[in-house]
């Protein structure tokens, strides 16, 4: 399809619970990026993939966050033992290798940790 599909749209978790977010990139887009957008609207980069390989994970809080992009499956972002500060909208974006790197964003997953 021509859209980046993110699921679920909303997710509510109690502090300490696990959260798992999914992203299906546009077919043919070999790059996938995850960003966290918090209330001040700033985008914090988390991790990027080139196909199923981690390309850049400099933004990931490694102790609780993990991500995967496996062949023929949506990409996933998992947060173990969520904290209140993880409440944010998580956006996934994909880009085509020939597009000079412009992103198509998914509609985001709003995670609320209570």
């Amino acid at each position, binding site marked *: 399809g021509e859209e980046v599909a993110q699921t679920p749209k909303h997710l509510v978790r109690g502090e300490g619970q696990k959260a798992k977010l999914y992203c299906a990139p546009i077919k043919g887009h070999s*790059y996938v*990026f995850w*960003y966290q957008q918090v209330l*001040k*609207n*700033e*985008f914090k*980069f988390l991790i*990027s993939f*080139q196909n199923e390989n981690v*390309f*850049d994970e400099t*933004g990931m809080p490694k102790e609780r966050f993990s991500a995967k992009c496996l062949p023929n499956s949506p990409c996933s972002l998992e947060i173990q033992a969520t904290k209140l500060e993880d409440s944010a909208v998580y*956006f996934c974006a994909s880009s085509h290798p020939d597009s*000079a*790197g*412009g*992103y*198509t*964003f*998914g*509609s*985001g997953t709003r995670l609320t940790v209570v």
Partner: protein
Amino acid sequence: QQPVQSPQAVILREGEDAVINCSSSKALYSVHWYRQKHGEAPVFLMILLKGGEQKGHDKISASFNEKKQQSSLYLTASQLSYSGTYFCGTRMNRDDKIIFGKGTRLHILP
């Protein structure tokens, strides 16, 4: 490394023009502009590549001054639909992640 956007916020009347600026202290490969409306995903507007260029799309255009590492987004004869937060993003090289500025909130009054 985060690009600096200015102004932080703009209020205009319909039909007025606006300029949003984006500057970086590092040499850039590309500058990207996105618009995000409240509760929605960012929408791609345009990319400008190093080499210095200007692009236009309807009444929205942008320029990239490679010498100064500055880009400007121009909105002419603004429409109500232009309201939202505009983000510039910068890339240091072709495959790098985009680093976004803090955004410029644009509000258009009828």
